[in-house]
């Protein structure tokens, strides 16, 4: 996992100093700095992708410094690379053809070919008899594709739209209205797509989507090891391992993993042994775990700094400041992870003008605008509640369809 730094094909006093510092900063950022990946622009949320940008970006950054240093003249121009186009004899043998195709980046695996098919067919869907995403075959895929395209085009001049009220939410409402008679709500169809995308990268993606699905279904209650895990069901152990790996990597960073001294009441409520340790864990550098939990309380069997340990339990409340929140007194057993009364559910902070003052005029866009991340996920959460603010979940005109927070209390001991 160490950086694979490229050679810098030029040197000089300024550029040498810059390159040395660049590597130090990149390594500090990548290995030691617990930033919140969910706050970054989309192309930077993936750790491995960011590492590649840092590696390859060094050459370009160094060249800019070299340009500025003014060491001009023959020999200091930078030959970036060879053209992939070869001479006419470049493809006159099978081996040469394989090589040039390889050099062009062609990958003949099933995944790569499937990807090419997916992309190419969209250019002329009328010629595609197998288009699984066409509106004719699946009534929800068309609207979602339309929605995503709208969202993406809004950001085509420089990233995602800064204001979701600017076009995208209107489009979301239109699509929702146009398809209101079909057999599943729009958010459910969006989660199907999110499940297939995020789950592909890691089982943690499935967990993230399943928790959101539970919220939007209005299930409430407690999510535990025996609940419906959806597509994540076969991957509970891998999920547990991911949590352990995250803690193990960040165990020496008190911001990311900090020990908590819980009361006896708390320890008894969650069935801890005398040797169990409790940590507040920020999952910020792991995008998918962060999407599921953000920050959670994790019980482990021993101090991670002193040796091996097992993840025994994870507790949290699953709620949204732009949707519904669970109000906890944090006294006794009224803490995240423990059962709650529905009367403790209230509109999130983004819908209030002060901590205890609901603003009934808060629109969906205003609620989202102040906080949060990926719009395609946030909009269904805020849209489920609709415009307004309610002190109690039960006061909502249609509470069962407005989303509902729940508590997370997963016992990993037998997983």
């Amino acid at each position: 996992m160490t950086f694979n730094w490229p050679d810098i094909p030029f040197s000089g006093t300024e550029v040498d100093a810059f390159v040395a510092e660049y590597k130090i900063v990149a390594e500090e950022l990548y290995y030691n700095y617990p930033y919140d990946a969910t706050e970054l622009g989309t192309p930077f949320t993936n750790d491995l992708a960011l590492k590649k940008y840092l590696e390859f970006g060094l050459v370009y950054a160094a060249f800019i410094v070299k340009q500025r240093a003014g060491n001009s003249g023959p020999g200091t121009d930078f030959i970036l690379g060879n053209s992939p186009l070869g001479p006419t004899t470049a493809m006159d043998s099978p081996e040469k053809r394989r090589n040039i195709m390889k050099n062009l980046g062609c990958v003949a695996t099933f995944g790569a070919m499937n990807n090419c098919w997916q992309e190419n067919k969209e250019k002329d869907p009328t010629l595609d008899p197998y288009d699984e995403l066409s509106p004719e075959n699946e009534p929800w895929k068309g609207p979602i594709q339309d929605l995503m395209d709208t969202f993406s085009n809004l950001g085509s001049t420089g990233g995602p739209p800064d204001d979701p009220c600017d076009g995208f939410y209107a489009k979301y409402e239109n699509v929702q209205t146009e398809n209101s008679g079909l057999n599943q709500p729009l958010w459910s169809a969006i989660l199907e797509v999110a499940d297939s995308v995020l789950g592909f990268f890691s089982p943690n993606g499935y967990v993230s989507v399943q928790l959101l699905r539970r919220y939007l279904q209005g299930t409430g209650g407690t999510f535990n090891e025996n609940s419906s895990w959806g597509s994540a069901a076969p991957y509970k152990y891998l999920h547990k391992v991911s949590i352990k790996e995250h803690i193990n990597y960040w165990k020496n960073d008190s911001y990311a993993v900090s020990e908590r001294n819980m009361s006896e009441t708390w320890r008894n409520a969650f069935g801890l042994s005398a040797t169990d340790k409790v940590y507040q864990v920020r999952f910020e550098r792991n995008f998918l775990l962060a999407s599921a939990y953000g920050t959670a309380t994790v019980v482990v069997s021993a101090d991670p700094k002193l040796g091996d340990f097992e993840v025994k339990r994870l507790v949290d409340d699953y709620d949204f400041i732009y949707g519904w929140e669970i109000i906890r007194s944090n006294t006794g057993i009224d803490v995240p992870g423990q059962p709650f009364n529905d009367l403790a559910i209230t509109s999130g902070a983004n819908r209030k003008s002060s901590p205890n003052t609901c603003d009934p005029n808060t629109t969906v866009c205003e609620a989202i605008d102040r906080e949060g991340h990926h719009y395609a996920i946030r909009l269904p959460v805020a849209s489920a509640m609709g415009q307004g603010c309610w002190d109690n979940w039960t006061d909502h005109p249609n509470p069962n369809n407005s989303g509902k927070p729940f508590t997370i209390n997963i016992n990993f001991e037998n997983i």
Partner: protein
Amino acid sequence: MIKTTYLQAFNHFNLSVEENQLLGVGAGSTISFGSSLTFYDIFNFKDPMDIAPTGFLSKSGFTTITEAVLNGVGYFPPLDDENFHVSPETVQGAMSSVTKAMLAAILDNNGKRSTTVGIGSSRGKAETVINTLKQKTKRDLTVAPYNTWRDSVGIITPTSISRTNNVAIVTTTPAHGLSTAFDDWGVVMNLNSGIGTASFNISTSTYPNGVPIRIIDSTTFAYANIGINTDWTNISGTADVRVGWGGTSINLHLYYA
């Protein structure tokens, strides 16, 4: 089946991606050496003025459902993933954004016109890089680089303007005073009188640090500006001068041999 990998994107920056689209001209040229052909380009960023990161940049719009969905759910794949690869333009744009962030964090003067490594801890510089790459609503505008990056460096007074083939040409009185030793000047045009002057103005919501200009002479400069051809018109208003990316040397090139 051809798949353009991230290595293609990183190692073969194409001229059209990195050309200065805002000026409507590219710095690249072709030159011949005997029987071979070489392309060269002055290296700069696609957006040579601002530091805010780019998102998805597929040149032909978001033609793939894959890229659109990834954008929608806010997740980015590993670059060598075979099923969810994104466009080379997006990969190149993302790397450019990281390059800018690293330059701003490491060099003095927010990375502008400097070759000197700045003082400060590596942790502090890493924080600057991350702050640079954050979504707009998450950025801390009170610290580097955003606290000073878009600062004005002066005001010049335009007195007449014209537009031909989507390039606006501005004359100033007195002389603008911008040194031709630098190629990183930009302006935020704010004209308030004259026929059709509103179409020449630059919105800082779209271009937070203005648009790049090309200095023609001591009293004239040009900038990309889409609109109908317009004869010379007397105007009043201001051109707020900004500094973006670039340097003092224009004689070093990236070569594609």
